[in-house]
């Protein structure tokens, strides 16, 4: 198939919406998003936070596991170059918090990508083939939905040990269900449209129709859902780490730091407050951004 009959991702994303001439949905959504101050502020904060988490540890004089024998549980101070203080083992809190941020970011990216791939393919296949395949596949999703997933994830972590790759996979495997439902709904609506019929008439293979024609057209709601999945994933990882079932030493994560800080909160409250603030700000911004994107991409609010 030549490229020119492909509905390009960036060009015509949501076919149900009626757009002004020459105004692609992506551009239109971007304009709308830019007017949303909370969402734009959040986007900027998130980008800055990500850069600081990635580059910050390189610029600071302390490493992740470096012990400063002269400063145990010392409060934030500029003189000792522990700008946010040290923990009970004399390790620099700022460096550890930034490394924790790297873990959270990587979990967010990988686990969301896992859920995205599974959910989109599953939903698209169910929606495209319809009939018995669809009802069977969605019945499975319904059953999965009613499982107490948090407990299953914890069981997984207990049984297979606390491996970061497993955290990625387990969280991703939990979060794909909503995505599958959303994509299926989109595809059901899309598959009766002329361009799909035309592709079928031209003899395009089913697999190609799903991946080249249906999925790119269902991308709008998927983007919105992805931004809402990211905070959920970060939350899940911190939850597991908080319980001591997630990331293990020498690595650290915000959940681990909050849990450590809680034990010391009476004598060293900064150990609790710093990672809590980082986590809360990140989750806040992601939620604002997700809401903003939904408003920008949702045809109903037009």
């Amino acid at each position, binding site marked *: 198939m030549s490229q020119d009959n492909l509905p390009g991702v960036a060009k015509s994303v949501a076919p149900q919406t009626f757009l002004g001439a020459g105004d692609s949905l992506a551009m239109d959504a971007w304009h709308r998003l830019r007017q949303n101050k909370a969402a734009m502020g959040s986007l900027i904060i998130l980008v800055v936070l990500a850069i600081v988490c990635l580059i910050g540890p390189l610029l600071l004089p302390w490493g992740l596991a470096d012990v400063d024998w002269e400063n145990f549980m010392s409060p934030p101070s500029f003189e000792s170059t522990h700008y946010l203080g040290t923990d009970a083992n004399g390790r620099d809190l700022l460096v550890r918090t930034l490394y924790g941020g790297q873990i959270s970011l990587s979990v967010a990216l990988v686990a969301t990508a896992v859920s995205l791939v599974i959910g989109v393919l599953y939903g698209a296949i169910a929606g495209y083939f319809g009939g018995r395949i669809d009802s069977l596949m969605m019945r499975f999703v*319904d*059953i999965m939905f*009613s*499982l*107490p997933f*948090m*407990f*299953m994830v*914890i*069981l*997984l*972590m*207990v*049984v*297979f*040990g606390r491996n970061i790759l497993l955290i990625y996979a387990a969280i991703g495997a939990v979060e794909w269900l909503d995505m599958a439902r959303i994509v299926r709904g989109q595809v059901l609506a899309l598959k009766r449209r002329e361009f799909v019929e035309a592709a079928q008439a031209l003899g395009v293979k089913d697999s190609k129709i799903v991946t080249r024609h249906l999925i790119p057209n269902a991308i709008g709601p998927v983007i919105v859902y992805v931004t809402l999945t990211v*905070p959920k994933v970060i*939350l899940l990882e*911190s*939850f597991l780490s*908080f*319980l*001591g*079932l997630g990331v293990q030493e020498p690595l650290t994560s915000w*959940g681990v730091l*909050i*849990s450590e*800080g*809680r034990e010391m*909160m*009476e004598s060293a*409250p900064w150990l*609790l*407050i710093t990672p*809590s603030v980082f*986590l*809360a700000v990140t*989750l*806040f911004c*992601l*939620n*604002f951004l997700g809401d903003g994107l939904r408003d920008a991409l949702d045809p109903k609010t037009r």
Partner: protein
Amino acid sequence: MLTYILKRFGQAIPTLLIVITVSFFLMRLAPGGPFDGERQLPPEIEANLMAAYHLDEPLWSQYLRYMGGLLQGDFGPSFKYKDFSVTDLIMQGFPVSLELGAWAIVLALAIGLPLGIIAALKRNSTVDYVVMGIALGGIAVPNFVIAPIMALVFGVMLAWLPAGGWNGGAWANMVLPVIALSIQQIAAIARLTRASMIEVLGSQYIRTARAKGLSEWEVILHHALRPSLLPVISYLGPAIAGIITGSIVIEQIFGLPGIGRYFVQGALNRDYTLVMGVVVFYGVLIVLLNLIVDLLYSVLDPQIRYDD
């Protein structure tokens, strides 16, 4: 209606079977036996232990034995708490978790609903923005961040309330955990109520009710309230699941002797039977509560007919 109830029951059973079966086989997949790690046991003693816990039997017979035990409410022996069965431990912890969870649900509804309704009625006013700002905070900030900070502020710094402990279920000991457990659900319910109330208030029959001269109060109480509560009712299932999950952390943070604490202890000690018992117990509870919520919804929503 009866056929619908039976049908939903029929759907719940395979779900329960999946929960139990997956947990069972996951646990048996675990590398290493339950008696590794302590001292190296002489082979005869280990063989005796394996026989005592029926671990020497083939897998399918262990599975059937476990299922048979479950039907009689027997979750098997705990591998770490040698003198207790898992059923004993769950039954010890459950009253605490139940009391905590029940209060949390009540509080979530008692605060979340009015907040959402007020925000919807005063849409785009300062009140609305404040309520929705707080609600977003409640959703964005996880309870394992809020709970320790609450314990720090109200328990340690101000010393108004105990920062932890159960104390036989004393009123003062419950305040902080219950609030911490319900904040996320208060926020979610407030947002949901606001959204559905706004949608209902914009509908035709509300305009009709206003047009025939009913007072604003009558419009809200008699016409708008009931339909706008329906999404909240269907949210109760996830809310309960969220509170049960949250109770694991909250019990840990405040040092309460509920199921959640045994669960975390069991998970960290690799007490497989205990972990699995809790997963199965809460799994069954969540599936059954979801069923009840669904049935409740079908009773309350006149638009849904389940005759076919």
